[in-house]
């Protein structure tokens, strides 16, 4: 049978161009190869919702009765002829799962607020409530082979990406049982198994790091993407543009997800940016802007974006129009630069959990009382985890010097140098 025609073609083209470098060869071949591979009908071993068709649903899903869901807010597209569908399907199990996942994140953040105010959590704490749909929708659309990297507002993503409440609270409180051993705190939550590269304190770092992750994905010829998440405040950092150029130049499978909650700390987006849209910042990278408060919109958009990357077209920007109810961090009341009415209005009109709740009630998948008792159950679960974390021990003293280097060649002394 020989080599696939596409690879032969690629090799011929390379010979013509006289390219000798191994890197270029690899990249060109892998691009050709992935194009060849993304043929409709081929099962990839995971659920890929190709736009317009439900061809790839797993059999288990097809057995349950699915209901259609509208995605009301139209997508805004940049350098894309067609976007994701404005409708999708869901099932009772899925809806209940989304509700639960988002309610868990919401309750966790509220509890973290209380713990911070009672000084159980110290340091800095940046809460995610309001933005749950982005985390849940994103994780739903990806597989465990995809990498995610975000900034400091990472509690929601950590939980959505398989982190446990106990480890999360422990890390926030700086306990030994935390996911980072209590050494990182709120901004530094990670999960190796689920390829959650965490929690970064410096604004804008996620983009170039994400470019590196996506290069590795492509180089190793994996059918997976890297998602680099940053905010509207970070969008003016130089390194974002550097990362975008790298990703576009090398056709990296990178999804740049902008969590646009409209405020960089206390600065509204229109005060910080000449251009207040983020999906079309760079003309050579396509992008789309979606309603980030709608978990289905996020899910569809990320599936679409993943397909875009997997077909070798390079990076794509997905801007999620979302909102955070709390201030930037616990030292920011969040009301000096926006009105209470605005926050209340978003809660009433666009709350992500309410959106799913309405669907559940409309379809009769559960009653209001059922959801209430689910909420109670979640609350109990969260509070139990927090209480357990409170009892956990702090890191051992030798943890102070551990993991500075691989083999800990660091100087270790506690007093003074003679």
């Amino acid at each position, binding site marked *: 049978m020989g080599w696939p025609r596409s690879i032969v073609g690629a090799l011929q083209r390379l010979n013509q161009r006289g390219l000798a470098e191994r890197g270029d060869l690899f990249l060109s071949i892998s691009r050709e190869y992935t194009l060849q591979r993304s043929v409709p009908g081929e099962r990839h071993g995971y659920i890929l919702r190709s736009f317009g068709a439900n061809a790839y649903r797993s059999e288990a899903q097809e057995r349950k009765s699915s209901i259609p869901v509208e995605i009301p807010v139209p997508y805004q597209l940049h350098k894309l002829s067609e976007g994701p569908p404005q409708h999708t399907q869901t099932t009772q199990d899925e809806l209940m799962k989304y509700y639960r996942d988002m309610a868990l994140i919401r309750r966790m953040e509220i509890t973290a607020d209380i713990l911070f105010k009672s000084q159980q959590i110290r340091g800095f704490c940046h809460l995610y409530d309001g933005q749950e749909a982005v985390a849940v929708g994103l994780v739903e659309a990806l597989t465990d082979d995809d990498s995610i990297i975000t900034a400091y507002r990472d509690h929601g993503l950590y939980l959505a990406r398989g982190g446990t409440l106990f480890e999360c609270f422990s890390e926030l409180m700086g306990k030994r049982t935390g996911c980072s051993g209590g050494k990182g*705190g709120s901004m530094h939550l990670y999960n190796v198994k689920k390829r959650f590269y965490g929690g970064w304190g410096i604004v804008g770092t996620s983009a170039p790091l994400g470019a590196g992750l996506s290069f590795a994905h492509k180089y190793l010829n994996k059918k997976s993407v890297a998602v680099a998440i940053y905010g509207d405040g970070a969008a003016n*950092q130089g390194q974002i543009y550097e990362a975008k150029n790298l990703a576009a130049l090398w056709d990296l499978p990178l999804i740049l997800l902008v969590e646009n909650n409209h405020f960089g700390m206390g600065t509204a987006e229109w005060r910080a940016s000449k251009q207040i849209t983020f999906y079309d910042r760079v003309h050579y990278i396509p992008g789309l802007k979606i309603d980030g408060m709608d978990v289905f919109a996020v899910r569809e958009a990320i599936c679409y974006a993943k397909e875009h990357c997997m077909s070798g077209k390079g990076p794509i920007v997905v801007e999620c129009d979302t909102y955070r109810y709390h201030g930037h961090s616990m030292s920011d009341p969040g009301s000096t630069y926006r009105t209470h009415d605005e926050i209340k209005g978003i809660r009433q009109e666009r709350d992500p959990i309410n959106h799913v709740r309405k669907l559940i009630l409309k379809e009769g998948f559960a009653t209001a009382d059922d959801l209430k008792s689910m909420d109670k159950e979640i609350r109990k679960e969260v509070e139990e985890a927090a209480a357990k974390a409170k009892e956990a021990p702090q890191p051992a003293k030798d943890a102070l010097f551990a993991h500075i280097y691989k083999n800990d060649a660091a100087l270790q002394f*506690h007093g003074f140098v003679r």
Partner: protein
Amino acid sequence: MVCNTCLFSVWQSCMMKACRMRKLNLFYGIRVRAKSWSYVFGEDVGFGGVFRCTTGLADTFGKHRVFNTPLCEQGIVGFGIGLAAMGNRAVAEIQFADYIFPAFDQIVNEAAKFRYRSGNLFNCGGLTIRTPYGAVGHGALYHSQSPEAYFCHVPGLKVVIPRSPTQAKGLLLAAIRDPNPVIFFEPKWLYRLSVEDVPEGDYTLPLSQAEVIREGGDITLVGWGAQLAIMEEACVEASKEGISCELIDLRTLLPWDKEIVEASVNKTGRLLVSHEAPITGGFGAEIAASITERCFLRLESPVARVCGLDTPFPLVFEPFYMPTKNKILDAIKASVNF
């Protein structure tokens, strides 16, 4: 506030009244000469800044002179260098010293070398970069760093660190007026803690001049910023045990006042340097090496350094990391009993 009819002035003062909130509130004084102008900019400075240092400035002097920038440190400093190159006084704020690193290239490669490489044709002496630095009790890795040592390694820059509100006002005014780019590190620990009667007039304190803030005869202690308060406590404890300590505030780290430290060590024969930054490669190493060169035969014991540990600034381990009063006291006694 004093307003000269032909000049703008914005004054630096501290919350002096006990009934008001005990915050270090910096308004700083910039004189506008005939042709040049002064500007204050950075992230969130317009509404007063995250530490309220610039409260009221925008209202008084206008948003065209006191303005917010987007989140782009490299851009902020580069922009400041450009402004200063046109003869303006650009006071750029970097919100936390931990975030100064994207701007490191601009500071080291552009600001510090501009005058030198243009043979004095151009300069950005009007640039002052203010940034809160240092531990604050709960800052963890990215709100507590002390990066002064990185900048002390760059000829062409000046590095100034005040220890109190009165010092901060005089030194900041001097830094702004100094015809060289200055990085002004403000100990954020002191923003809320420090209360002092600050003179209302215009005054400057000399740069590159250390100050002996406590006289003594047995050992010289050198420090800067918030650490001095800790060292002062250690001196008081040591005096109870009959050790008389001389405490020197360096105030300017680059170029630093070697003469005053040398004179003091020639008197006492012992030196101890203390700073929050990690010990290896910290500025204490430069002081130790210089003084050993100058005072070798006079030294009675090795130069002691009581500094932060060689770890990233930790989360829960901050109390272990910090150079505390007891560590300093321990070192004082060891030095005296050498």
